[in-house]
């Protein structure tokens, strides 16, 4: 059984705002399936007593004190912006996704 369906690939493409053709969907679904099958093999050796790992280093509580550091200047902050208006990053509108 495939690890990922063509529909799931289409859904992810939409979430990522990637314009994927019908033919590309077939290609990517096949490629992603190979990758996922390979990664899934890890599950074959993961026994019940081994918890899922999200972090490779055994550290907790890496915190910083609440002390202000220097920010970037506005010119520096906006230097890499695709476009600037009124000292703000100017980007295309996003419809129907008002957070």
């Amino acid at each position, binding site marked *: 059984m495939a690890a990922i369906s063509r529909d799931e690939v289409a*859904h992810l493409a939409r*979430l*990522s*705002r990637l314009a994927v053709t019908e033919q590309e969907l077939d290609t990517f679904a096949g490629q992603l399936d190979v990758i996922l099958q390979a990664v899934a093999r890890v599950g074959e050796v993961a026994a019940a007593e081994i918890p899922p790992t*999200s*972090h490779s*280093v055994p*550290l*907790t*509580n*890496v*915190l*910083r*004190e*609440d*002390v*202000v*550091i220097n*920010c*970037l*200047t*506005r010119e520096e*902050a*906006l230097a*890499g912006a695709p476009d600037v*208006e*009124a*000292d*703000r*990053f*100017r*980007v*295309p*509108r*996003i*419809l*129907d*996704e*008002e*957070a």
Partner: protein
Amino acid sequence: MTTTTLPDYDAAVAAFEPVIGLETHVELGTNTKMFCGCPTDFGGEPNTRVCPVCLGLPGALPVANKAAIEATIRIGLALNCSIATWCRFARKNYFYPDMPKNFQISQYDEPLCVDGYLDVEVDGRTVRIGIERVHLEEDTGKTLHVGGATGRIHGATESLVDYNRAGIPLVEIVTKPVPGAGALAPEIARAYVTELRDILRGLGVSDVRMEEGSLRCDVNTSLNRPGEEWGTRTETKNVNSLRSVERAVRSEIIRQAAVLESGGRIIQETRHFSEETGDTRPGRSKEEATDYRYFPEPDLVPLAPDPQWVEELRAALPEAPRVHRKRLQEAWGLSDLDMRSVVNAGAVELIEQTVAAGATAAAARKWWLGELARRANEDGIELSAVGATPAQVAELQTLVDGGKLNDKLARVVLEGVIAGEGSPTAVMEARGLAVVSDTGALTAAVDEAIAANPDVAAKVRDGKVAAAGALVGAVMKTTKGQADAKTVRELILERLGAN
């Protein structure tokens, strides 16, 4: 769309049982952002409180702010929650430019605090509101939509983004669903947010200003017929004052009841509350569940709060607002009923501060629940926003107690204070409102009144002291109300030898 006339509120809650739930976001008052050292001060020029971390520049790594973790744990403890012994941050992925990283660092299935409660008092009874979770995340940037006529996203062609707010620590507090509220649902929602705000203020973790957005509230509402399963809920956003919390629940109950009564169904959606109209309008539809693809944040190591640290924080919690109010009630000598009207008017702290500024509790209560509450009601605003400070009210009362103002003049002075003309003393002097205390001028006015009303004067001379009222009235008229009536009366009786 339906054009059904809306049923009234009483009919709605007679036919349906509301279930409410509240999600509250609180911006913490830390010095720096959640994952970087940029300052959090309000009102900086756009994009001047940003760094590689909060701009999501390649290679920048977040480090959690210890003060924000501590504040969140304290909030959890104050809300009777269990504190996680181990938890992780999570990435919430979404495509919208208010976060430059294309994701928000939040907490998902491992919140820092879970399963608590908050007791609130409504209409003389105590209602326990379950707390589902308290978690920590980062606030988003502010987007400004341009190119359209309305400033809202529909019709806009471009968005302008300021990332000063992006990354400010934001605590989300989610209640469990509150069933069984019945007709009191709107009041309970308001009482919950009020109590929560007081707790947060007491903890000193946030300035909790709803109008500035440091305390934001989303209200979930659903209706079901008695005995049936809970209905589909809507989520109302943009609820920016305590009064609006109550109005939003109320209007959503009425709206949903109308839809259901006419055979329609409620759509699970986000709605926006309008301060102007007092009703809710549809926003983004949630029929297709949002897919945020949460996963553990790889750039931040897990949190494991030391239980001993948590216990120290618990031991150092301030007195709960409820306990504090009980103490104030005793100190002010108020009955339960009187105290409730103080609480309902949102006047507890204002009176407390007025007393601290030197007024008696009785005088402070008289001003805040009398003249000032009337003004707030008329203008449809919170009492705290009425335009007079506790210090000014105390100063006003000092002028009354010192005989410089009578009650009537004091009310006029208060008008001036509210209008922004300055302190009570400044308003009194600028408008020439002080009581006429110059005995010479008063005596002249008294003599004039006696001369103009010989019949009345004769009666008073004969011992009919009650008749002096007419003379007092005449003097008050010539002094344009700026005399102390008691002094005038004494002066008249003295002049007429009736003392």
